[in-house]
């Protein structure tokens, strides 16, 4: 891998950081390597929005090559949404462009005294005033930056007004609406007065053994092009599973309180493909093209929503109009909101209004009645302006619940709102949400797909019933390890190539001789390191839980009557992980077995 550019916004000094070789071998890259690099800085007394808080953009060893769906990069920091490990990866072209400029990452520290744009043009690094960009939405910012710089096509990662205002659901956006959405990385960027990072590179992305890499990635792309999942994602987008998830009862409705809804399938990828879809979009060198281009009543071709947004602003709010969701998606993009967090928080507001916890006096006179699209749109604007009730909406579901004495009603784990895969329909997600290092998350493990059959035998994974309990705990842990590998490479989860192919790509790109078992151990190491970071920040077993609304059975639909036995599942999970059953820390023995004795000394200090 190449060096990491370090930028101190307080002193306006730049430098290069060489990643120690053994870190690259142990953690590969991306999120796991970021955890290793930031470990010593992420301590309980650190304010995530302070100048001292680091913000790390990092690629992986496959990022930006012509491999199978490897256009992603990751952003990591202490999360202002959760107070825990923050991590959010993003597709598009920005990460590959950074590697072409000669850097594998950018480590930001300090705080600028005015809004700035960071320009990385090969080895030319420059901070420019961005005062004229402050307040602009991400799309307008990208257009202005491209125009101002006059360098032709540049790749821009930027924040919107939400990030500027340090809202914990503020995102970082790049390219044509690709988003690092979760854990408030945009707020961290905003706290540093860093409006955008523009990148232009003229080099090539390095791999250790180019000839063998080219052969393997060519074969991998051919396999991927012919894969069923690729064809499904091409034709239907990320909402391709919508019909089936609705049938299984794993598609949440009415703030996770209803099992069925007439017309819920109108937000599925299949319906969208037959109605508003007019094209597709891709990330760097991707043969899948899961991105949607749609045309709605305004006639403009624009970014189409993906599954989470379709459900979040659809059945989750008792709505089913894909065109409306498209408009809300654009609105959230322009404010710079994470669509999962804001739609989940709005559904909590509806639920609290329905049960009488809040009234029109709290909502600035609005009646919050399920299915009222006009009110939903008004609430997004309120959150964007942070006026009145909007101030609480912008802080997320946990904060909104706390404000009105109803934190238990918020469908969140450790401060991150639950995405739209109900663990009562696919029980593996119960463990995934409870143990994810960044709060409730479907991108540390997409076990909802494993629960319907996407289990690779070559990894030693088994297929369990979607309503199985503790017996699937070890399988979930193994799946998390595998996806931790993906998040370190950084490779898209949709890259459905055989595991051995992934290992061959790594070996060829990094000049190693890993086996599948070696790579799985690397994933396990990354998972345990993030856990250790969180343990040092105060997280323990009491944090590993599901919110109350997910522990109540649904009355109808494909998940009716089922509630995951999360306590039994966690007990089995801790055993499988080698974690202490009392405090939930990785045991000293486990850490030492993973070569992490230096972490064991922090978590288990000798008297």
């Amino acid at each position, binding site marked *: 891998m190449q060096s990491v550019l370090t930028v101190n916004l307080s002193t306006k000094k730049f430098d290069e950081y060489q990643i120690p070789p053994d870190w690259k071998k142990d953690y590969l890259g991306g999120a796991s390597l970021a955890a290793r690099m930031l470990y010593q800085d992420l301590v309980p007394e650190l304010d995530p929005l302070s100048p001292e808080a680091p913000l790390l953009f990092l690629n992986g060893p496959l990022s930006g090559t012509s491999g199978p769906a490897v256009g992603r990069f990751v952003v990591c920091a202490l999360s202002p949404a959760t107070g825990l490990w923050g991590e959010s990866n993003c597709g598009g072209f920005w990460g590959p462009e950074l590697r072409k400029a000669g850097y594998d990452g950018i480590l930001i520290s300090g705080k600028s005294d005015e809004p700035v744009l960071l320009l990385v043009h090969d080895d030319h690094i420059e901070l420019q005033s961005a005062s004229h960009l402050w307040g602009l939405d991400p799309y307008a910012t990208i257009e202005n930056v491209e125009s101002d710089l006059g360098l032709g096509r540049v790749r821009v990662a930027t924040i919107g007004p939400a990030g500027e205002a340090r809202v914990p659901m503020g995102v970082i956006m790049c390219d044509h609406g690709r988003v690092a959405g979760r854990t408030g990385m945009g707020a961290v960027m905003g706290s540093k007065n860093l409006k955008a990072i523009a990148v232009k590179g003229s080099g090539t992305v390095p791999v250790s053994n180019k000839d063998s890499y080219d052969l393997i990635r060519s074969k991998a792309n051919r*396999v991927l092009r*012919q*894969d*069923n*999942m690729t*064809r*499904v994602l*091409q*034709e*239907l987008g990320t909402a*391709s*599973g919508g*019909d*089936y998830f609705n*049938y299984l009862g794993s598609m949440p409705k009415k703030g996770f309180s209803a099992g069925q809804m007439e017309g819920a*399938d109108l937000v*599925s*990828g*299949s319906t969208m*493909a*037959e109605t508003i879809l007019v094209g597709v979009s891709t990330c760097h060198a991707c043969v899948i093209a899961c991105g949607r281009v749609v045309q709605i009543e305004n006639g403009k071709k624009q970014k189409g929503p993906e599954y989470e947004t379709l459900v979040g602003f659809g059945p989750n709010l008792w709505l089913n109009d894909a065109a409306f969701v498209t408009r809300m998606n654009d609105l959230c993009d322009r404010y710079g909101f994470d669509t999962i967090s804001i739609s989940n928080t709005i559904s909590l507001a509806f639920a609290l209004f329905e049960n009488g916890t809040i009234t029109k006096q709290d909502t600035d006179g609005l009646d919050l009645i399920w299915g009222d699209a006009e009110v939903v749109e008004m609430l997004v604007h309120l959150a964007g302006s942070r006026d009145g009730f909007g101030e609480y909406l912008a802080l997320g579901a946990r904060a909104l619940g706390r404000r009105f004495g109803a934190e238990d009603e918020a469908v969140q784990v450790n401060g991150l709102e639950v995405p739209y895969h109900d663990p009562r329909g696919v029980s593996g997600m119960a463990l995934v949400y409870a143990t994810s290092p960044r709060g409730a998350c479907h991108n540390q493990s997409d076990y909802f*797909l494993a629960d*319907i*059959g*996407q*289990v*690779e*035998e070559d990894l030693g994974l088994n*297929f369990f019933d979607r309503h199985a309990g503790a017996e699937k705990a070890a399988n979930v842990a193994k799946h998390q390890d595998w996806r931790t590998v993906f998040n370190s490479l950084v490779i898209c989860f949709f890259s*459905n190539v*055989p595991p051995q192919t992934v290992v061959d790509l790594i070996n060829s790109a990094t000049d190693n001789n890993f086996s599948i078992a070696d790579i799985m151990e690397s994933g396990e190491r990354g998972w345990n390191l993030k856990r250790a970071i969180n343990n040092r920040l105060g997280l323990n077993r009491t944090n590993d839980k599901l919110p109350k609304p997910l522990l109540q059975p649904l009355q109808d639909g494909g998940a009716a009557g089922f509630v995951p036995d999360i306590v039994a599942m966690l007990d089995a999970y801790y055993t499988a992980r080698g974690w202490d059953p009392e405090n939930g820390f990785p045991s000293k023995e486990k850490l030492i077995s993973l070569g992490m004795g230096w972490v064991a000394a922090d978590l288990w200090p000798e008297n």
Partner: protein
Amino acid sequence: MTIVFPSEEWVLTLKEKLNSDEQYQRIAKNWEGDIIYVVEPSGVLEEEIKFYIDLWHGTCRKAIMLKPGEQQEAAFVLRASYDNLARILKGDLDPMQAMLTRKLKVEGSMIYMMRNVPTVLDYVRCCQEITESFLGE
């Protein structure tokens, strides 16, 4: 007579099963589409075998084993090795797992397929229930 997969008897028995199974008829009531199954050589199967099955609103209108080289068009083509299909029919490999891990290839409208996953899975159940034996057993 033992019903062996893959064979002419197997596909004829499947037709009878689909036309008499109430659960399948209920779940598949909206399905419209014919399918060709390509059983690719592997293990004890040395030559490719194809079945043509015409499914329509919960009934099976036609089910035959195609002769070698016989051409037939269909809305969907499902392709898998004999070994993997045998594992599916024995219940050792879940059909969704096979589709999601490159062991069973689907050609045809993915929009239609994704809307009808429960129909496909119940169809597989019927296939499993009629299969009594496998080649070489």
